[in-house]
């Protein structure tokens, strides 16, 4: 019998070295090609003529308006979805009611529906020829081709993010802490704020960050309802498109780079959270 070498003590599920190299190499090559390279290109294009023109492009009134609108939209959509996500996750994870599977499916709907369709839904409902079109005109309420439409479309597209983050977390935590609280005389609301919510705060924050990143970057649905009015209903992704179509590449890439930066900041925050709270997925505790 041969003497056992170090290689014989590999972890039982370990793959041979060549397989590891091939697999990891493939992943890295793929990541580089479809993720890193375009990201680098965005910044390279933005800075092609130096930092000055790039900053100028971001500082134009139209760009500022787009940045502001993007922040306002995310600022409304994210808190709304946080509230909705908490309620939906609470109802689904902690309670049993008829139609629960249907509700779970509905929450996933925005993931499966094309964003363009999501935008069209709002045009059909609130647009000039839509169901409520005349009523809205009579009362001088503008939804489509205005800020409310953009916010609605963004909410629609991003609404599964926080609920999806919280549902498995709450399900895993079970209901015994809530039962304990209720058996000691706590009301439903008191139990929610003092027992349920603190247990999911990290998961909630994580969901909020993801939702925020997506809300700022949403293009398709917003594009349909926005009307592309410069300085009024253009969000950052739409502004990038307009600039690009006008062959103003430096400006287009400068705004795109800013959008990328916002996303990167969000992801960095997310990673910091994960390091600070190693069991963030489990909402803290043992």
């Amino acid at each position, binding site marked *: 019998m041969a003497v056992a070498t170090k290689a014989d003590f590999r972890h039982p599920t370990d793959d041979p070295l060549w397989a590891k190299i091939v697999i990891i190499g493939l992943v890295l090559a793929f990541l580089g090609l479809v993720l890193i390279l375009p990201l680098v290109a965005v910044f390279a294009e933005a800075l092609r003529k130096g930092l000055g023109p790039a900053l100028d492009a971001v500082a134009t009134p139209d760009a500022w308006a787009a940045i502001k609108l993007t922040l306002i939209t995310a600022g409304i959509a994210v808190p709304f979805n946080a509230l909705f996500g908490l309620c939906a996750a609470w109802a689904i994870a902690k309670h049993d009611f008829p139609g629960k599977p249907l509700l779970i499916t509905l929450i996933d709907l925005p993931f499966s529906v094309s964003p363009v369709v999501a935008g069209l839904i709002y045009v059909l409902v609130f647009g000039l020829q839509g169901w409520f079109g005349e009523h809205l005109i009579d009362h001088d309420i503008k939804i489509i081709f205005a800020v409310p439409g953009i916010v609605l479309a963004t909410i629609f597209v991003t609404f599964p993010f926080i609920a999806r983050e919280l549902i498995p977390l709450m399900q895993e935590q079970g209901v*015994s*802490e809530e*039962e*304990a*609280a*209720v*058996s*000691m*005389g*706590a*009301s439903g609301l*008191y139990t929610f704020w*003092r*027992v349920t919510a*603190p*247990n999911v705060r990290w998961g909630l924050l994580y969901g909020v960050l993801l939702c925020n990143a997506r809300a700022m970057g949403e293009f398709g649905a917003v594009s349909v309802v926005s009307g592309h009015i410069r300085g009024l209903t253009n969000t950052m992704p739409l502004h990038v498109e307009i600039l690009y179509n006008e062959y103003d590449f430096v400006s287009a890439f400068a705004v795109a780079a800013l959008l990328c930066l916002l996303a990167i900041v969000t992801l960095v925050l997310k990673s910091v959270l994960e390091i600070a709270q190693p069991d963030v997925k489990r909402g*803290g*505790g*043992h």
Partner: protein
Amino acid sequence: MTISIRSVEKKFGRYPALNSVNLEIADGELVALLGPSGSGKTTLLRTIAGLEFPDAGQVLFEGQDVTFASAAARRVGFVFQQYALFKHMTVARNIAFGLDVRKGKDKPPKAEIARRVDELLKLVELEGLGKRYPSQLSGGQRQRVALSRALAVQPSVLLLDEPFGALDATVRKSLRKELRRVHDATGVTTIFVTHDQEEALELADRVAILNAGRIEQIGTPHEVHDNPATPFVCGFVGEANRFEGTVSGGRFTSGPVILPAPDAAGGAALAFVRPHDLVLDAEGFAAKVERVVIQGPLANVDASLPDGRRIEICAARDEAAKFSSDIRLSARRAHVFAA
């Protein structure tokens, strides 16, 4: 607090969890609900707690119908299987929770709550750990916190769901004694659920044995062990060798095995013999010793009958040498049930 369970039924979907259950519990009693998993014991406990409501039947506390009263209204203290401590609160806040949620004049002043928390920490021997978080405690300590949290509201009845299930054997043993001590010190009527017969027999004043949603027998540990009412109880409580055979003329026969059955009616029957009721007897049936295991003062003997069936015998350690290879056995006592 006396508790009466009257003809309680509960179904989950089409699966009956409780099937016409009746149970009377006296004030200050310590009762165990013992049964295999799926026997309905936890459902019964939760029905008493007000965490589950029956489809039919009544739950009475002190003669008062509380069938549909909330857990809080019943003033029960409930200890959950995995303790369900509030992870983000300190031990002291956990214990104080039931007092903190009270409103208006029912809420004790802060100093009073703090005093009560200290008192409870002392009762369960966790003094000085009030500022820790549950994640900083061992399993046994968490269990004690859960127990004192349940006691903080001065419950009319203390209910525990598999209280020692998640603990290792040594901690389990010491906490068992602890629960008995706390029960004796507070005098609160206590009901606990367990699947561990040793735990039930050691700790409880009375044991209710559940099987498939029914109570098979209620009695003192001594009664259920020595006079099992049904074959299920006989097989579930304590060790037993099981034989299928027939009774005639006060004797149970199963192949070569002959057992005393003085009171049994004739016909097909099931017999159970405790390992310690099998004794060496030159006149008895033959068996072949396969293995002798010494456990403390006892010798546990695995043996087989000529037809291949296996039996277990338990004897005093000093007797171990007598179980050499071929032995003859007879039973001092057998529990025989008509099949």
